[in-house]
């Protein structure tokens, strides 16, 4: 069946930076093997910001961990491929992956307190990372570290470079973490809930920073979060995940304002909006299925008010649905919309 060929990147002509094809992540447990990610496929174009949104258990953090190569055992990649700049990275050994991590992929995690080593000054941590990946002298690395700190908005970077993490506040620490992630000029940054632990006013600063600094350094970002507001303000495209699968993927405003998948639609409607008053929030009855009880066919079908007979039998792949792609039989070719 000649379906429209996979759209690589959005409408860019350049080859995609990151390609994830049918990625499967499994966890062997004593109750059997659990599939935490079930054939995830998406691309990230160079310089693009892709948001990955979903509720707990949807598998968004696992996707990030699989890409960086930091899956916690016994979890493992059990199928599919991950390609970075034309090179396959999911089957590399530890040593090879270590070179990729930091140099070509940077990471930002949720808790700025534990992301930095409390025993070393931030200057030392920055120069160590820089020199591990780029051939530079100590002096040059330090100069680069200072300029990175200035880029991320740390005041008086010349003095503060020798300070220790505990001497910074939460928001400042997260800026240092961003500087650390950019230290070796990676092409891709995976940010897992970078603003969730921060106050609202700081969140806004950090989001704006992430956007500008990544644009300036030419890095693409995979932004993993559960906060749709953050996604709306930062991302170019967004992927909505459900029960280890991608439910919908497409340009951010299309997914938010005209969601094609019933789950995305339910999610958008359930989020309280600060601009309007509503009597009751829309609720999706039931809960996300546990990994050992994922329904046959479409994982969302028991909770979906538009489900058809086919939905309980066959699992839908991502298919074009207007400006986005949704894994939903409602949009099958030939189905009246």
């Amino acid at each position, binding site marked *: 069946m000649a379906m429209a060929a996979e759209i690589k990147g959005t409408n860019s002509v350049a080859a995609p930076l990151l390609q994830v094809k049918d990625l499967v992540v499994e966890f062997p447990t004593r109750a059997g093997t659990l599939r935490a990610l079930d054939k995830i496929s998406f691309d990230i174009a160079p310089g693009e910001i892709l948001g990955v949104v979903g509720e707990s258990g949807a598998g968004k953090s696992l996707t990030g961990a699989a890409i960086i190569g930091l899956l916690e055992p016994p979890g493992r990649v059990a199928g599919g491929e991950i390609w970075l700049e034309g090179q396959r990275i999911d089957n590399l050994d530890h040593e090879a992956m270590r070179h990729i991590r930091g140099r070509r992929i940077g990471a930002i995690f949720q808790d700025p307190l534990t992301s930095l080593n409390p025993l070393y000054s931030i200057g030392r941590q920055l120069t160590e990372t820089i020199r591990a990946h780029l051939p530079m002298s100590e002096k040059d690395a330090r100069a680069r570290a200072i300029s990175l700190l200035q880029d991320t908005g740390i005041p008086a970077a010349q003095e503060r470079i020798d300070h220790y993490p505990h001497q910074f506040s*939460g928001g400042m620490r997260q800026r240092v973490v961003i500087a650390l992630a950019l230290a070796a000029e990676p092409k891709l940054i995976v940010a897992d809930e970078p603003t969730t632990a921060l106050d609202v*006013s700081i969140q806004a600063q950090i989001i704006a920073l992430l956007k500008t600094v990544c644009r300036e350094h030419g890095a693409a970002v995979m932004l993993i979060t*559960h906060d749709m507001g953050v996604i*709306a303000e930062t991302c170019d495209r967004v992927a909505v995940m459900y029960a280890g699968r991608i439910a919908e993927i497409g340009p951010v405003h299309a997914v938010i304002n005209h969601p094609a998948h019933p789950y995305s639609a339910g999610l958008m409607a359930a989020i309280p909006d*600060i601009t309007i008053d509503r009597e*009751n*929030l829309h*609720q999706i009855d039931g809960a996300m299925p546990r990994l050992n009880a994922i329904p046959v066919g479409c994982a969302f079908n028991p909770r979906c008010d538009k489900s058809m007979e086919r939905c309980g039998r066959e699992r839908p792949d991502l298919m074009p649905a207007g400006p986005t792609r949704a894994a939903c039989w409602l949009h099958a070719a030939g189905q009246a919309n």
Partner: protein
Amino acid sequence: MALVQANDLAMHFDVSAPWLNRVVERAPRLLLHAVDGVSFEIQKGKTLALVGESGCGKSTVARLLVGLYQPTRGSFRFDGTDAHATYNSSAGLQLRRRIQMIFQDPYASLNPRWIVEDIVGEPLTEHGLITDKTRLRTRVEELLLSVGLAAQDRIKYPHQFSGGQRQRISIARALATEPEFLVCDEPTSALDVSVQAQVLNIMKDLQRRLGLTYLFISHNLAVVRHVSDQVGVMYLGRLVELADKQDLFANPRHPYTRMLLDAIPKMHDTGRARTPVQGEVPNPLSPPSGCAFNPRCPHANDRCRTERPAMREVTGLRIACHAVEEGRI
């Protein structure tokens, strides 16, 4: 008369170094003014939401109202009588029947070793309201059904439930003694969006049916917009603005409230120009002199830096800001 009246509530924590350190190092006494003079009222059947960022003292206010702390200053009057005097007297148990609390963390707010029936039934047995085992079981089942759980869930352990379901069990426990006033400390902050919607709907529904009064603590202004009648904005232990929900969101007056509303990432583009956000919340141990917000405020003048603004009634809402008082903004 309002059901809940808080008047100049204050709570100071002594966080000084141990006595030996203070003597040897000559370190000074350190007082953390977690709550520094907060006054508000809640009418029966209404919801007051308290919002603010970390360190603003909203959780401490919650714990003051339910009697977990003794206020350093000020009073809390419930249904006309001084609540803390009652908490400390023999009538304290009776008062605790009428005021209950729902906590933030669904994983830590239920004893992992008890079954649901014992957890939800504990307030009833503790207050001696029901002694007969069969009647207790029936009442627990009723409570579970009222929050959307099954009657058979009473024999299960907390770890067999999801976060949203655990929060419902907490609500069922809080409702056991038929309280009039519920203090809710960030009840949905740890929950997913779709689960949050379910829990908030249940809470609103229960309020309508049972005539409950809520104090709703949250840092999420969108949730607050959905559940509250009145909103109080807190900053570093002080109330800076207190207004009806419609007024606050349509026309925020205090510079901090405006900054907060602007800073929230919005899902749908409102097209409103954003004021750039400045600075960070200062260390609560050494708050700025005068108005606590002055270092970050674009409208601060000398008076703001020296004199702490008092909460005043200005065109129908209550606000603590010199600039608004003086008509500068």
